[in-house]
C-alpha cells in the first residue's frame, strides 16, 4: 500500500487491512473483493479506487484495472499513482497513445519511453529511454527498448533520406551500408561505387568499399580503395592499417611495412596493426622488429585470438633461428590458448 489512508470508519479499515493482507499473500481475487467493498463504502475517496486498480494490475487483469483508476482520477485528477497505474494498464492493453499523457504526469520515463516507442514517437522515446537507462544501466528490458527505439529512429531517418533524396550520395551510402550488414556484397559494392561517383570526398566511403573487396580477397581492388581513403584521410590509422594489410596480402612487403609503420605512429599499440607489422618485418627478414611487434601484441592485448597468433608467430620465428627452447615455450603458450578457445577457423564457405 503506497497510499496513506485516513478514515474514521472501522468497517472500511477492516476491509482495507484484509485487502492489503490478501495482496501481500498473493491472493489478488480476495484483495479485489475487499477493496471493492472499500470503494462501495466510500465512493468519494479516490485512494480506494487506486488500491482496487492496483490489485487488478497485480492480478494481470489490465482491462479490469482501467475503470477504477479512471474513477480515481475523476475524483482527484492530480493523483500521480493513479496516472502511473492507469498508464501501465493502458500500455499493457495496447493503448500506447492513451497511456502517454498519464505516464507523462507520473514522470515515469521508462514506461513513457516504451509507450512512445509503441506509438511511433521515436525521438521522444529515445530521449526518455536514454534517461531511464542512465538511471538503470543494467536493466535488460530497458536496454532492449532503448536499442530498438534507436534502431527504428535511425531507420526512419535513413528511410526519409532515401525517399526524399534517392539520388544523393548519402542515400547510396546508406543503402550500401545496409547491404554490407546483410552481407549482400555485390549490391553493397554497387552502392558504394555510386556514392563515390557522386561524393568522392566523403570520408570513410573508400574505406568501406575496400572492406567489401577485402572480404572477397580481391586485394588489388581493396588496395586501390584503401589508398584512396589514405589520400582523403592521411590521419586515419585504420585506413593506413587496411592499406598495409592489403599490400601484405599481395606480397608487397616493403610498401606494406611502410604503411603499417605509419598506422602504428598514427595510433600506437593497435594490436591488429602490430601483428601485421610483425608479419611484414618477418617477411623482410627483420626478425628483431618482428619479435618486438609480436611481443607488443601480447603485452597490449593479454587475451585474444590475436595473442595466440602472436605466440604462434613467435614460435615460428624462434624455430627458424634455432632457438628451440624459446620456440617450445611460445608453442606451449599457443597451445594453452588454443585449448582455452580453439583457434579461429579460416573463413570457410
Amino acid at each position, binding site marked *: 500500500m503506497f497510499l496513506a489512508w485516513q478514515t474514521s470508519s472501522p468497517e472500511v479499515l477492516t476491509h482495507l487491512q484484509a485487502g492489503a493482507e490478501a495482496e501481500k499473500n498473493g491472493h489478488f481475487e480476495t484483495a479485489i473483493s475487499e477493496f471493492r467493498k472499500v470503494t462501495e463504502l466510500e465512493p468519494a475517496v479516490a485512494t480506494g479506487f487506486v488500491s482496487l486498480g492496483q490489485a487488478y494490475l497485480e492480478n494481470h487483469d489490465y482491462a479490469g484495472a482501467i475503470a477504477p483508476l479512471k474513477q480515481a482520477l475523476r475524483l482527484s485528477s492530480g493523483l500521480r499513482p493513479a496516472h502511473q497505474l492507469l498508464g501501465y494498464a493502458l500500455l499493457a492493453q495496447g493503448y500506447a497513445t492513451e497511456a502517454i499523457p498519464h505516464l507523462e504526469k507520473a514522470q515515469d520515463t521508462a514506461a513513457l519511453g516504451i509507450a512512445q516507442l509503441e506509438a511511433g514517437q521515436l525521438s521522444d522515446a529515445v530521449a526518455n529511454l536514454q534517461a531511464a537507462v542512465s538511471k538503470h544501466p543494467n536493466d535488460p528490458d530497458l536496454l532492449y527498448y532503448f536499442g530498438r527505439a534507436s534502431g527504428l529512429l535511425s531507420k526512419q531517418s535513413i528511410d526519409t533520406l532515401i525517399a526524399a533524396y534517392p539520388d544523393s550520395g548519402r542515400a547510396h551510402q546508406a543503402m550500401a551500408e545496409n547491404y554490407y550488414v546483410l552481407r549482400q556484397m555485390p549490391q553493397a559494392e554497387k552502392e558504394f561505387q555510386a556514392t563515390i561517383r557522386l561524393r568522392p570526398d566523403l570520408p570513410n566511403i573508400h574505406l568501406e568499399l575496400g572492406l567489401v573487396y577485402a572480404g572477397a580477397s580481391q586485394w588489388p581492388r581493396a588496395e586501390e580503395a584503401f589508398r584512396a581513403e589514405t589520400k582523403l584521410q592521411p590521419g586515419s590509422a585504420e585506413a593506413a592499417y587496411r592499406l598495409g594489410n592489403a599490400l601484405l596480402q599481395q*606480397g608487397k612487403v616493403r610498401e606494406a611495412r611502410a604503411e603499417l609503420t605509419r598506422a602504428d605512429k598514427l595510433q600506437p599499440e593497435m594490436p591488429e596493426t602490430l601483428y601485421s607489422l610483425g608479419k611484414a618485418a618477418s*617477411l623482410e627478414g627483420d626478425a628483431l622488429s618482428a619479435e618486438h611487434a609480436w611481443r607488443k601484441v601480447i603485452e597490449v592485448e593479454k587475451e585474444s585470438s590475436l595473442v595466440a597468433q602472436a*605466440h*604462434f608467430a613467435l614460435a615460428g620465428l624462434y624455430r627458424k633461428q*634455432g632457438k628451440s627452447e624459446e620456440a617450445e615455450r611460445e*608453442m606451449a603458450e599457443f597451445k594453452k590458448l588454443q585449448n582455452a578457445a580453439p583457434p579461429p*577457423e*579460416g573463413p570457410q*564457405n
Partner: protein
Amino acid sequence: MVLAAALATPVLEVKHPAGLNFTLQNSPTSRKYLIETMPGGVALLDYNNDGLLDIFLVNGGRVTSSMEIPETFDRSDPLNWNRLYRQNKDGSFTDVTKEAGLANPGDGNYGMGVAVGDYDNDGYPDLYVTNYGKNILYHNNGDGTFTDVTAKAGVAAGGWSASAGFFDYDNDGKLDLFVTRYMEWDTKHSKTCGGEWHTYCPPEEFPATTSILFHNRGDGTFEDVSQRSGVAAKKGRGLGVAFADYDDDGLTDIFVANDGMQQFLFHNNGNGTFTERSLDAGAALSEDGRRLSGMGVVFQDYDNDGRPDIIVTELPREIYGVYHNEGKGLFSYQSLETGLGMLSSGSSGWGVGLEDFDNDGWKDLFVAQGHVLDNVEQIDPSLHYRELPLLALNRGGRFERTDPGTGSPVAARGAAFGDLNNDGWQDVVMTVLGEQPQVFVNPRGKQHWLAVKLRGTRSNRDGLGARVRVNGQTRFATTAGSYLSASDKRLHFGLGAAQAARIEIAWPSGVRQTLNDVHADQFLEVVEAEKP
C-alpha cells in the same frame, strides 16, 4: 606485352581423346549427403606394360533421396562402374573395364579414390580403390586382368576412406599402404547445414576418425598396424596424403591433409612407429595459427633446394598453404612469398601437382578447383562452384598464373599427372563432378627433358621413396599425392637448354647411384645397383 601474352601458346590444351566416355556419377540430391560432393579419383598407370599410360577413373554411385539404409549405390549398374581405359597407339582409348575384371565394384560402396602400386613386385601395377564403404584391392594378373584380393589381403578398411597411397615405410622392399579416412559419417547421421541455404555440412559437424596403415607382409596379405605404429593415435579428417623423406634420414614420412583442422606430419621413427610432428615442424596451421581446410597435397621440392616442400589445397579465403622445407625437420609458411596466396584466395583447391609443364627446370603448379557447395554463389556471389583450374608457372620459386588451357569452369576434384603421349611434356587428367574428365595435353615446346623410370632390385620394384636428383632438381618417387588420385610413376624433369644430365639416385634400400652425361629427351629406365 599484353598482346605477346595473349598470342603465346598455352602451356596446356584441353583435348577430348576418342573413347574416353566416362561420366563421374556423384548423384547430387536435395538431402545434401556429404559424399556427393567429394569424389572422384583418377589414376594414370601403364597396367599392361605396353609403354602407354592408361586411365582408371573412380565412379561415385547412385544415391537415392532420401537415402536407403543400407544404401546400395547401384554399383551393379554399368553407369556407376569404375572404368579402366586402355590407351591405344593412336592416342585414343578403349574401355576395358569388363574384360579387365573391374566391372561392378560391389553394392554398398560409393567410390572415392585410387592408389597405384606394385605391392607384390611382379612388375605390374596394382590398384587400390577407396570408397565410402569397403575398399577394394585389385591384383594385376599381368594378362590384362585384375582380381579382387581384398579379403585375402585384409585391406577392406571400412568407414569413409579418401586418398590412399603405396609407400615403403620400413624399407623392406615391399610396398605398404596408407589410407586416409575422412570422418565418422554415415547415412543415418547425415544432416544439412546452412539454414535457409540448405547446404552440405562443414567437417566440424561430424566426429574425426583415424587413418589406417597397412604393413605388407610379403605373402599377399597386409597387417593393420595403425595402432602399433602410432598412426591411429591421432584422429583427423584426412582427405589427402603424400609421402617424402622430409628430414633426409632415409625414411619416408607421411603428410595428411586434414579438412577443417590442423594438418598431420607423421615422422617415420625408423622402428615401425610414427610421431605426429606437424605443430613443432611448422606444417600444421596457417601462418596465423589458423586451422585449414586441407584437401589435396603435394610433397615435392618447388624451389630446387633439394628438400621436399608441402603445398596443401584449401577452401577460399584460406589461401593454399605452402610449407617450405627449411631443413633440420622444420618448415616455414611461405604462401605470400611464393605468390600463391594471391592466386588462391578466392578458390577451392583439390587435386594438385608440382610438374615442370614448360620443361624450364622449375616445377609448376596445377590445381583442380571448384567449391564444395553447389549453391555457394547464392551464399557468397564472389565464390564459385565451377572454377577454372589453376596453372601457375614457377619463376625461380615464385608462382605466376597462366592460361590453364580451358575457358570452361567446372566442379573439378581429382587430378593425376603424367606423360600421356610420351612426348616428354607432362599432361594432366582432371575429374569433374557429374561430367566427363578433362584431359590437358601439353603441346610441347623447345626445351629438353628427361623421364626416369626406376626399377628397384633391393628396394621395392618401382623404387617408390627414392630421391632422384637431376641437374640440381629433385623429385621423390611416388604415385601418391594430389586428391584421391595416383600419378604416373615415371619421374619427369625439365632440363631447359641442357642436352645432357647428371642423375643421382638415393634408393630406399640405401643404395646410391650416379649416372653422368645422360642424353636428354629420353625415357630412361634405371635398374637399382646390387651393391651400394
